[in-house]
C-alpha cells in the first residue's frame, strides 16, 4: 500500500462524536469530537487530569459512556470486539511467559485437533510477525522478563499488530516511549511507520512534544475533559501546544517566596559526577534554606537520584559530600543519621505500614527513643503522635487508628510529620502531592516552607509545575538520567518548567552550577 497523501482525504477509521463521560457525578469528558484516518498518526496530548486516559478507557470498553457515539470503520464500537488494538502504558505483558505466549494470550493460539497448542507453528507465526516489524532479534521463546524495555515495548506493539491483522482497524499507543532511552525511540518509530504504511490509523498519547512533532500528522489537545483543538502538525508550534495544554497565555512569574540569600552559604549536600542506575554525571548542590524543584518525565531518573541521595541505592561512580565532606551511604539508616529524609514516591509500596496504627507509622523511623527501662512506652508514642496530629491537622484525630483507614492527604501529613520530627538538614519529597487533596497539599507545602525557613534544604520532585513555580527558589530538570537544565529567579514559571521538562525550548539559565 502506498503512503496516503494528506491532500486526498483518507478513509476515516475511527469517529468519536459528542462523547461525554461522568464518574460519580463529576463530568470527566465533555462533548469530545475526534477522528482517526487511515495511515494517520493522531497525537493526543494534555496534562494530568485532562481526560486522556478516560478517553482511552472509553475506547477500550473499560468505561461505558453516557452520551455520544464511537464508530470504528463505520461500525459502532463494541467492547472486546477487537476493533481497536492497544499498546497500554504499562504494556500489559506477563513477565513469566514467553513472547509467543504473550502475543497469543490475547489473539489466540495455533491449535491442533485436540485444542493442543502447536508450539512449532506458533513460534513460526510469532517469529514472522516480529521480523515483519523489523525485530527478528527477539526470539519467540524468550521470556518477557529476560527482555530489555525496548524489546518489551516491541512485543506489545507486535501483539497489537497481530490484532490489526485479525481485523482491528485502529492502534492506540499510550505513552509507549515512557521506558525507552532516547536512541531507541527512533527504532520504535521505524516500526510504527511500517504499520502506518499498511494503512493503520493510530492514536498516539505522549507527553513528549518532540516525539509528537516527529511522528504525528495531527495533534489534539485535551484540557479539563474538553477538546481544546485539533490541528495539523504543520500548522502547530511547540509553544502554542504547551499553551493550550496549560490553558493560559505564557505569563510573567508572579512575585513570590522570600528571595533567597544563598549566595555565600556553603551547600549542605552536593554531588559531583554522581552516577548510579539510570543516573549519569549529576552535579547538584543543595543549600540550607533552599527549596529546589526537580522535574523530569517518567523514567528521567528523578526517583533514582532521590534514592541515591538517601542511600537507598549505592552510587556506581562520583561522589556525594555533606557539608563539604565526602560521604558514602550504604543504607538509608546512614543517610538518616546524617540528617537526610526521603518522602517516597509511592507511600503504599515503600512509605508506610498500612495495617499498623498511625502512631506506629510515625514512630517507625526511630522506635528506640520510646524504649525506656526495658519497655516500649506506648504512652510516649501516642503522646508524640497526638502532638503531630494536632500540629499537622490530621483527621480523624485517632493515633491508634489503622494507617490504611486515613485518607491520602492525612497519610501524607503523617509521613511528613515523621520526617520533620527528625529536624532534617535535607528533606527530599518525591511526588508529595500524589493522591493528596488540595487542602492537605497546601498544608504540606506550608510545612515544607517552614522547614526551609529553619534552614533545611528541601528537594521536591513533582509534576505540578504551578506548585513548583510558587514554592521553588530553583528548578532543575532531568532527562535521560542527566541534569540538563536549571531555572532560577524570574525564569521559574509553569510554562518554562513545562517546556524544559518536555525537553523543548532551551531556556537561558540564571546561574551556572
Amino acid at each position: 500500500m502506498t503512503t496516503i497523501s494528506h491532500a486526498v482525504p483518507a478513509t476515516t477509521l475511527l469517529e468519536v462524536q459528542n462523547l461525554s463521560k461522568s464518574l460519580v457525578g463529576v463530568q470527566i469528558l465533555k462533548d469530545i469530537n475526534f477522528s482517526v484516518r487511515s495511515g494517520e498518526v493522531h497525537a493526543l496530548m494534555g496534562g494530568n487530569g485532562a481526560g486522556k486516559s478516560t478517553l482511552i478507557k472509553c475506547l477500550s470498553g473499560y468505561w461505558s459512556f453516557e452520551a455520544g457515539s464511537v464508530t470504528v470503520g463505520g461500525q459502532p464500537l463494541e467492547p472486546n470486539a477487537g476493533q481497536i488494538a492497544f499498546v497500554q502504558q504499562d504494556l500489559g505483558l506477563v513477565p513469566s511467559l514467553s513472547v509467543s505466549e504473550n502475543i497469543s494470550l490475547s489473539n489466540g493460539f495455533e491449535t491442533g485437533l485436540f485444542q493442543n497448542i502447536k508450539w512449532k507453528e506458533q513460534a513460526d507465526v510469532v517469529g514472522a510477525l516480529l521480523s515483519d516489524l523489523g525485530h527478528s532479534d527477539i526470539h519467540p521463546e524468550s521470556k518477557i522478563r529476560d527482555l530489555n524495555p525496548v524489546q518489551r515495548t516491541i512485543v506489545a506493539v507486535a501483539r497489537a499488530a497481530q490484532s490489526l491483522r485479525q481485523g482491528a482497524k485502529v492502534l492506540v499507543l499510550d505513552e509507549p516511549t515512557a521506558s525507552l532511552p532516547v536512541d531507541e525511540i527512533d527504532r520504535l518509530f521505524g516500526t510504527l511507520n511500517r504499520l502506518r504504511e499498511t494503512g493503520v490509523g493510530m492514536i498516539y498519547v505522549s507527553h513528549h512534544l518532540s516525539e509528537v512533532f516527529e511522528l504525528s500528522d495531527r495533534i489534539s489537545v485535551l484540557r479539563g475533559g474538553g477538546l481544546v483543538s485539533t490541528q495539523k502538525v504543520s500548522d502547530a508550534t511547540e509553544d502554542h501546544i504547551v499553551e493550550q495544554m496549560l490553558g493560559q497565555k505564557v505569563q510573567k512569574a508572579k512575585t513570590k517566596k522570600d528571595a533567597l540569600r544563598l549566595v555565600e552559604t556553603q551547600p549542605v549536600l552536593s554531588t559531583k559526577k554522581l552516577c548510579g542506575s539510570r543516573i549519569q554525571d549529576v552535579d547538584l548542590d543543595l543549600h540550607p534554606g533552599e527549596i529546589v524543584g526537580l522535574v523530569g518525565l517518567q523514567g528521567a531518573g528523578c526517583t533514582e537520584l532521590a534514592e541515591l541521595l538517601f542511600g537507598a541505592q549505592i552510587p556506581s561512580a562520583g561522589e556525594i559530600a555533606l557539608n563539604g565532606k565526602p560521604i558514602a551511604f550504604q543504607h538509608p539508616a546512614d543517610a538518616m543519621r546524617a540528617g537526610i529524609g526521603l518522602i517516597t514516591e509511592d507511600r503504599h509500596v515503600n512509605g508506610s505500614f498500612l495495617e499498623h496504627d498511625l502512631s506506629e507509622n510515625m514512630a517507625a523511623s526511630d522506635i528506640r527513643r520510646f524504649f525506656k527501662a526495658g519497655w516500649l512506652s506506648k504512652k510516649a508514642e501516642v503522646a508524640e503522635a497526638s502532638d503531630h496530629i494536632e500540629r499537622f491537622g490530621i483527621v480523624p484525630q485517632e493515633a491508634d487508628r489503622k494507617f490504611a483507614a486515613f485518607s491520602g492527604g492525612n497519610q501524607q501529613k503523617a509521613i511528613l510529620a515523621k520526617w520533620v520530627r527528625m529536624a532534617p538538614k535535607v528533606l527530599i519529597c518525591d511526588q508529595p502531592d500524589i493522591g493528596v487533596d488540595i487542602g492537605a497539599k497546601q498544608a504540606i507545602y506550608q510545612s515544607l516552607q517552614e522547614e526551609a525557613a529553619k534552614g533545611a534544604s528541601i528537594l521536591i520532585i513533582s509534576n505540578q509545575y504551578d506548585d513548583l513555580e510558587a514554592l521553588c527558589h530553583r528548578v532543575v530538570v532531568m532527562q535521560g538520567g542527566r541534569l540538563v537544565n536549571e531555572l532560577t529567579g524570574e525564569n521559574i514559571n509553569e510554562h518554562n518548567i513545562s517546556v524544559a521538562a518536555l525537553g523543548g525550548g532551551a531556556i537561558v539559565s540564571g546561574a551556572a552550577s
Partner: protein
Amino acid sequence: MTSANETLNDLSLKTSEIPRKKRLTQMAPYGMVILLAAEILMFSLLAPKTFPTTASMNVVANSSAILGLITLALLVPLIAGEIDASLPAVLTVTSLTAASLMSHYSWALVPAVGASLTLATLIGLINGFLVVRFKVPSLITTLGTFTILIAVITGLASGRVIEDGLPADTLAMLSEPKPLGLPLPLIYLAVTAFVVWYITEQTPVGRHWKAIGSSEPSARMVGIKTGRLQLMAFAFGGFLAGIAGTVQLFRAQLGSPNVGPDLLFPGLTAAFLSAAAFKLGVYNVRGAIVAIALVQFGITGLILTGAPYWSDQIFTGCTLIAALVVVRLMRSDR
C-alpha cells in the same frame, strides 16, 4: 473535617444501623476469644461431668505445651515477614540430638541440652542466611531444609526412640511436678510465651520485625536494617523450636523421631490464625495462644463427649475456618 469517603460511608448506612455496626466492629478483635468462651461453655453443657474438671484441663494443658511452643517458634519469623517451615523438624532434631549425646556419648544433661539448643539456633540461622542472602522464597527454601532434616532424623534414630542411658529421674523431675497445680510443660509454655511477647511487642527489635513483616521496602526506607533483623528472627525461631524439642524430651523422657514433623500444619495454622485476634491483620503472641486453646479445648471436648476419633480433625478445620470468617464478617474496614 471529615473525609469525603467517610461521609459517603456514613450516609450509605441507615441511621439505625450505625450503633450496632460500630459495636460489632469494635468487638471484632475479641471475636476469637468469644468463640473460645462459647466452645468451653458448649462442652461444659454437653459433658458436665467430665469436661469442666481439673483432669480434663490437665489433658488440654499437657497437649497444648508442645504445639504452643512450636507455634511460638513459627510465629517469630512470620512476624518478620518470612516462614520457616523447617522448625517442626528442628524440634525433633533437637530432642534426638540431646538424647543421643546423653545416650551414646554419655554427656551430662546440661551440656547435651545446651549443645542441641545451639544446633537448633544454628539451623535457624542457616535458613535465615539462605533467605536473606540469596533472596529465595522462604517457604520453599525451608521446605527444602525440612526434607533434609527429616533424613537427619532418620539417620539419628534409625526410626527408633532413644531411651537407653537417659537420666530418666532427672527428666521426670523436670516435667512431672505440678507447682500450684499446673503441669510444668504448661509453665514452660507460659514463660516462653511471655518472653516472646515481650521481645516482639515491647522491644525495638520486635517492632522492627513487625515493620518488616508489614512492608519490607517501607522498613528499609525508614532506616531499618532488614536483612540483619530477619536473620535474627530466623535464629530466634530456631532457638524456640529447640526449646520445644527440649520440653518434648523432658516430657517423654526419651528422644522420639515421631513427634515434630506432624506439628507443621497445626502449628502454622495456629500461627496464621493469631492475626485474627486482638490485633487484626498482625501476627501476635496473644492471638496464637487463643488459637491454640481454641483447637485443644475442641479436641479434648470431642473426646469427652464421645465423638468418633476422626472427628477432631474435622472439628479443628471447621473451627479455624469459622474463626476466620467470623472475624472477617465483624470487621468493617476491609
